[in-house]
């Protein structure tokens, strides 16, 4: 998905303005010219300058505002993308209550199936791989991965 440079420039410009507005509220250090806002302020001003240059370039290039990449017109690839991103979102939302093993299995199964792995292979793998990863990180490296709905098994 390629945006016109002007669109991207506008996003960066908005970011730099947001930074400049935020630092106004930062405290000043008495007796000194520079406080916590000085450095981010400097960066934001340079970034704003670059953004304006990019906007100018975008207007000159006259490319469409958004050029859909080839994959965006293929429903299958859009679905792949959404499931990959959705899998991470799902983990962030559900991991603590549902636990690592069920979450991992669901994410893997969904991704395997959308990437056209044979179901006969995808489902067993989706069940076994989270257990393997869990054993490595939970037992060997002692990362307290959440158990969630399952009792503590090992």
């Amino acid at each position, binding site marked *: 998905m390629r945006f016109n440079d002007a669109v991207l420039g506008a996003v960066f410009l908005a970011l730099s303005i947001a930074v400049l507005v935020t630092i106004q509220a930062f405290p000043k250090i008495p007796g000194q010219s520079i406080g916590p806002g000085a450095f981010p302020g400097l960066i934001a001003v340079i*970034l704003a300058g670059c953004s304006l240059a990019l906007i100018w370039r975008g207007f000159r290039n006259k490319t469409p505002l958004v050029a859909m990449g080839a994959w965006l017109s293929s429903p299958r690839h859009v679905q792949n993308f959404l499931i990959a991103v959705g899998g991470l979102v799902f983990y962030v939302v559900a991991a603590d209550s549902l636990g690592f093993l069920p979450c991992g299995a669901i994410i893997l199964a969904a991704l395997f199936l959308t*990437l056209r792995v044979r179901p006969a292979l995808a489902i067993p793998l989706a069940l076994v791989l989270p257990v393997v990863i869990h054993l490595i990180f939970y037992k060997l490296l002692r990362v307290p991965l959440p158990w969630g709905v399952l009792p503590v098994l090992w």
Partner: protein
Amino acid sequence: MVAAYAQAFALVFDPYVLTVIFCSALFGLFVGCVPGLTATMATALLVPITFFMPPVPAIAAIVTATAMAIFSGDIPGALLRIPGTPASAAYTDEAYAMTKKGQAEVALGAGLVFSAIGGLFGTAVMITSAPALAEIALKFSDYEYFWMVVLGLAGAVFIGNASILKASMSLLLGLLVACIGLDNPAGYPRFDMGITELKGGVSLIPMMVGMFAVSEILRFVVHMEPPLKLATEKIGNVFKGMWGLLVKYPWPLVRGSALGTVIGIQPGSGADMAAWMSYAMAKKFSKEPEKFGTGHVEGIVEAGAANNSALAGAWIPALVFGIPGDSITAIAIGVLYLKGLNPGPTLFINNPQNIYAIFLVFILANLIMLPLGWLTIKAAKNVLRLPRNILMPTILLFCIVGSFAINNTVFGVLLTLVFGVLAFVLEENGFPVAPAILGVVLGQMMEENFIKSMIKSDGDVTAFVTRPIAGFLAVSTFIILFWPVGAWLWRRYFSRRNMPITG
């Protein structure tokens, strides 16, 4: 020094460390061999695991895995015409053409043997120059460090294929990300958006896992290319004829290794840039430039040596100044800080055994590359047949666990997600990601030295250039900064004058 080297030997030749080196070598060879998994991604995936190791094995794992991955990226280049890592892209067509001519073993053998030699060359430069540079670095004050960081960042922006404007913006974005949190000279919580986890700043590891691993996975799931096809099943003895090549092409080898080391030292440009530049150089100085592109081994000798020597070169500024030479060392510096081994000249004085241990690991890694690389080439057929639609989701699950493991909160996973999508969108739109990482890693150092210098000089900007080394560094920085502008004006001026008058 002898005592420190003895200590370093004891640190490296320890069963645990050797096992780590062996395993990460296999890991690196595997990652490099699978198209779509880069050496940087190998590092990003390793970091959560190295988090649980003592410093020497942690660094050994990164050094070994990346050296192996850069070599083994040549394998799919020769067999599938797809570079396994970007560092092999420069000569992928050449290697593939050789495979088509039935010389797969020569292409792969040259890749393997000259990678190892290039890596050893870069290591030798590192061993001889780093301690000497550290002596100089000891004399540095805040002003010099400020310029070193600016110089490094300028290099990151200006040496690369991407648009300079976009590279600068990527860098500035990284610097802004570095501003988040309490870790600033004033100790004031900035831009935390009311999120407690952000008070300590953006954790480096989840961010890197996102930018280098999750973004690659996203790129894979939307890729439209047809399935890969092996060009040949038959690979002969890869070591056959290598001595002949060594005798025939000593200069390309030395040139490639030297150029690679220099490119590696230059912050922001790593193995891939080194390979492109030395391939071009090999063609320029070759007696038979017309053969390039038709399956001629000379360019592979030079560029294959260059990309591995760049890897070692990149560690020189990383260890001496704490300024990463490429995105891999940017991650490694993050690991060094986590381990309490803050890179910089004092590391050479207080903990020389650790530095020497890193040197030894480099030598060891480039030596075991020969037998293990040989095995990987033997097994390449099977590795390349591994279904990537099973591999990529599994890596995604590793990313989740890895980003969770650093602080044991799902917030790490959220960071990984945000930065993964961000890197994906940025790269789709021609913004390089490496400058952003350098910005994040160096932002804090840059701000600290900037603020301290400003306070010391009482707001007087001229103090930044009056000390001799600082002045020299400032001039170098401005030359790099204004070089492209000057070159552009020059070209514009001359093309105007010489332009034929039409209409």
